[in-house]
């Protein structure tokens, strides 16, 4: 999930061209509305997410493969709900008290989390980190007491740092393999060999980045992003509103 979710891929699709504020607002709306969504709304949201991923030239199958650990987590949610919810037994067995109602509730809970994850992936895949930062600043600006530029810059850096950490981790892993360190039996020792250099490297990278930002007189009161809302964005907002209405209204 990580590599795909945070790896913005430049492309020229409709989703890449959309206003980041609309995409972020859509993500927040979907994450709120799916908290209490029913099964039919979830099915609609799931297939919409897959369709949009394909539209953004992000293979849905690759996304699901990238989310394998998250899917394991969701399987745990499903299993826990299946076994702990009282109702009609699926199999007459005392050691596996799975119930029909448990399966339904488990699917509902896991489905809600999966739909949010897919939409989140869609947004980070099709939106530049700098645009996410600007959109966050735009949304936080009216809230008093929150240093919106600072928070937005930090979120932008967070989104930017995750792929950097993962890339450095992959490079170090290859370097360790080349030196046969992965053959060591003690897992703690292997972890130390990977973890400590990785952390030191990422901190040095961050410190250098801060120095580079200082050298370029980076300030929190720099030029803000110039938003250009087109008819396409308004249409997307209309579709988003209709989609949100359906999520709430579907029986």
């Amino acid at each position, binding site marked *: *999930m*990580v590599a795909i*979710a*945070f790896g913005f891929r430049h492309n020229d699709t409709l989703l890449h061209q959309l206003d980041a504020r609309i995409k*972020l607002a859509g*993500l*927040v709306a*979907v*994450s*709120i509305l*799916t*908290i209490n969504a029913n099964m039919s709304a979830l099915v609609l949201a799931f297939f919409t997410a897959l369709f949009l991923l394909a539209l953004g030239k992000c293979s849905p199958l690759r996304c699901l493969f990238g*989310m394998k*650990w*998250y899917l*394991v*987590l969701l*399987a*745990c*949610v499903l299993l*826990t709900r299946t076994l702990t919810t009282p109702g009609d037994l699926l199999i007459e067995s005392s050691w596996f008290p799975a119930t029909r109602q448990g399966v339904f509730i488990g699917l509902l809970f896991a489905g*809600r*989390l999966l739909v*949010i*994850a897919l939409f*989140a*992936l869609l*947004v*980070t895949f099709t939106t530049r980190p700098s645009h*996410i930062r600007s959109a*966050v600043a735009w949304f936080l600006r009216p809230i008093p007491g929150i240093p919106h530029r*600072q*928070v937005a*810059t*930090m*979120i932008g*850096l*967070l*989104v930017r*740092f*995750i792929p*950097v*950490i*993962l890339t450095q981790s992959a490079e170090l892993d290859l370097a360790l393999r080349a030196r046969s360190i992965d053959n060591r039996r003690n897992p703690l020792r292997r972890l130390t060999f990977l*973890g*400590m250099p990785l*952390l*030191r490297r*990422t*901190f*040095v990278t*961050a*410190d250098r*980045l*801060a*120095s580079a*930002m*200082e050298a370029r007189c*980076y*300030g929190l009161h720099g030029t803000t992003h110039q938003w250009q809302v087109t008819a396409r964005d308004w249409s997307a907002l209309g579709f988003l509103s209709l989609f949100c209405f359906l999520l709430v209204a579907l029986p």
Partner: protein
Amino acid sequence: MNERLDLHKLVIASLMAALIAVGGYLVIPIGPVPIVLQNLFVLVAALLLGSSWGSAAVAVYLLAGAVGLPVFAGGGGGLGHLFGPRGGYLFGFLAAAWLVGKISESSRQQPVAEILAMIIGGLLIYVIGVTWLKTLLGISFGKALAVGMYPFIIGDIVKIGAAFTIVKSVRPLLGIARRDGRLATPAGSGQ
């Protein structure tokens, strides 16, 4: 000078928020609350950055997750996660980061005090997390402790040791510590 210092802290706090997120991707799903490395990096953030910037790093991480970015355990995101069974632990991170940072600052980074601060911070995460879990799932306190605390204690002790080692290793690399004058300049750094 202060603005210069703030920019370094801002970048390091963002890095810590990113590391907390990456720590959440390495998931060992053993129940409603999976084993992750998030709390390790929360403790590291608090010790490296202090109470205000440490808690700011956690707050930014929570905000990024709340708006839906996939930064929570396993790559999840959204308000459903924040207010789900694990929500108490996530809010506990914020309180723990502030408390651990505060103790570390007031003790002038004494090793014993820092380890004690991490133990107290870890307990604070469990107090908030287990209470939240109990309330949300409607289970008994004993059961909430069994699924939300006992399986993680040994791992947390190891994480406290790891966090202390990381902090000792990383602190001299950071411009923040050098400029604050809290640490001696590393030999050969030329500053």
